[in-house]
């Protein structure tokens, strides 16, 4: 079975983050913004045209693209 990523989560749901895959600057940026192992993230909504998404993490709102959300694995 494929591991679930943040991209698979529909708005309104809250999940716990497992690991951030990918590499380099973008991965570091995502983690710097507080998306780290064990943190809970609520997916708020999808932008009008389907991308990017808006999430709540560590008490603030962050938007990121689905392509980047796909790099964020959920806690299994």
């Amino acid at each position, binding site marked *: 079975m494929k591991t679930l990523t943040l991209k698979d989560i529909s708005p309104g749901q809250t999940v716990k983050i497992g*690991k951030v895959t990918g590499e380099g600057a973008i991965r570091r940026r995502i*983690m710097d913004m507080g998306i*780290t192992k*064990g943190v809970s993230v609520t997916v708020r909504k999808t932008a009008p045209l389907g991308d990017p998404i808006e999430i709540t993490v*560590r*008490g603030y709102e962050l938007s990121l*693209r689905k*392509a980047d959300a796909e790099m964020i694995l959920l806690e299994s």
Partner: protein
Amino acid sequence: MKNIIKIALAGNPNSGKTTLFNILTGSNQSVGNWPGVTVEKKEGMLKGNKGVIITDLPGIYSLSPYSLEEVVARNYLVNERPDAILNVIDGTSLERSLYLTTQLVELGIPVVIAVNMSDVIKKNGDTIDIPGLESELGVKIAEISALKETGIEDAAEKAISAANGKNSIPRHSFRGSVEHALAHIEEAALHDMPLERQRWYAIKLFERDTRVSDLLNIPRDKLSHIESDISRCEKELDDDAESIIINERYSYIESLLEKYYIKAKKGPSISEKIDRVVTNRFLALPIFALVMFIVYYVSVTTVGTLLTDFTSETVFGEWISPFLEKSLTSAGVSNFLVLLIVDGIIGGVGAVLSFVPQMMILFMFLAFLESCGYMSRIAFIMDRIFRRFGLSGKSFIPMLVGTGCTVPGIMATRTIENLRDRRMTIMTTPFMPCGAKLPVIALIAGAMFGGAWWLAPSAYFLGLLIVGISGIILKKTKMFEGEPAAFVLELPDYRLPSVSNILRSMWERSFSFIKKAGSVILIASVGIWFLSQFGFEKGTFGLVSMEDSLLASLGGGLAKVFAPLGWGDWKASVATLNGLVAKENIVSTFGVLYGEDYKTALIAAYTPLSAFSFLVFNLLCAPCVAAIGATRREMSDWKWTLFAVSYQTAIAYSVSLLVYQYGMFFAGETNKYGFIAAVVLSVIFLYMLLRPGKRKVVL
């Protein structure tokens, strides 16, 4: 006591550093509510204490730099080592803000924390145990509200006394296995270093930052020793070194907040409620279009026009000009000088000044949009569309700023991490109609289209359209091909901007226009007037009729170039050329060349179609010298600058030609050659738009 104390303001983007800086130094830097308002560091003296220099740094989330403005902040802190860091943090977003704090205290520079928005924290009913946090972190904390100007002195005093005190040694600790590895690293390679800096370097070595290990010149055997420590730790925690450190920082902060922070439980915040409507799936795009329509409609067509007509017709037309003419003549001033003042100076400068009310209204709207928090939402809404054009939603912020003035718009591109995206945004931002183009739009709308309501908003949407087309065309060239850059953007809470901030921003920007009218435009108007009065007649130089003037022959040459666009007359050509100095100059040139009643004269000289084509060309062509200079600065390359300017001018010429020639075709007055040129151009455009890219842009 040190003679001069340097205090740096550091913190996350949008945490209120610049507002605090303005209060501390009494200066007037522009503030906004989107991440990345400050892109360069700024220095100022502390008000009432000349011995203290405050540096406002661009906002950063971390000391591992991504975008240009983060590099500026990091280099300053690491290389210049200020005497103290005043770490401004957003009290409503403690967890993320303290992440940077844990990195700042490792630098070994005394840190004082200013918890901003303490008024909002109180209103929300949240409590922070300040003494508890102070003792854990080993730093002093001041609670402030930069907006309400409370606690500022306290923060400044604490920062000054910290600067005069000892360097702080970071106190926070990570889990045992990580601390174990760090201790090993410190012991193996860093024990000669001042105690307070060891942790920073140990962590960098742990993260395998090769720049740091090269800098420290660590022998190979020690490095391999360190490496074995790192990999043991990685194995134990089943993660890579970089992630381990980030995780540790956040878990440390979580443990702090558990002890010292109580968040009052409550329903959805006001921002959430606003966003339910504003970024709603169905409403978001119409709302955005409506907002931009209102901004342009109100500032150009309704309120603005009322005021502008009053200034141009009554103030200048009925009061100032006749008064000056009469009093100067009766004072015995020579006729020539009277003409220079009334036709040259009042004609040119007055024509521009009379548009100041419209600009003020526009600037007021922009100031509100910039400081309320809507900007990031626009980036969020537009990202998907912009990605189709090979740009990111972040490119939209520079473009919106550019509707005020292109120069800060181009500067704002620094928040874009990816160089290709950044270059493309710099190239396309000038397509957005800036504040100085507003008088041109208003002039054409008023004189040629009977004040049509749709002209001003359409200038804005035309700009957007050309940005999109350019994106598609450029993205398919070798220079710009590649994957779109990532988009990770904070959406700050909405804030009701303070009236004084809005008025200040409006006044600042309007005043710079007025100043320009008194300097550049004044000189250009006088120059134009002279050139339009003098010339050679029968071999002798002297006063001539305007049609024989130097200017007429100068413009006459240019006019041939513009003839296919439908406005090949020397006056319009000169106006366009003059627009390169400053776009308002287009209006002042018409003011000088067509005299006081230039609006009526314009109707006689041009058809609506040729006037529209003229407007299109001037909206899109190379920006004014100030904006070209900004392009050069941000591209740091003349070739790219030249390419940008030629591209803009080529697009302007092509689009105007299409507008005019197809317009004539539909009016039944086809010009054979012009029409063929237009068809050929259309084919080229279609090819550029539709040809397959080197690499498919993933949608």
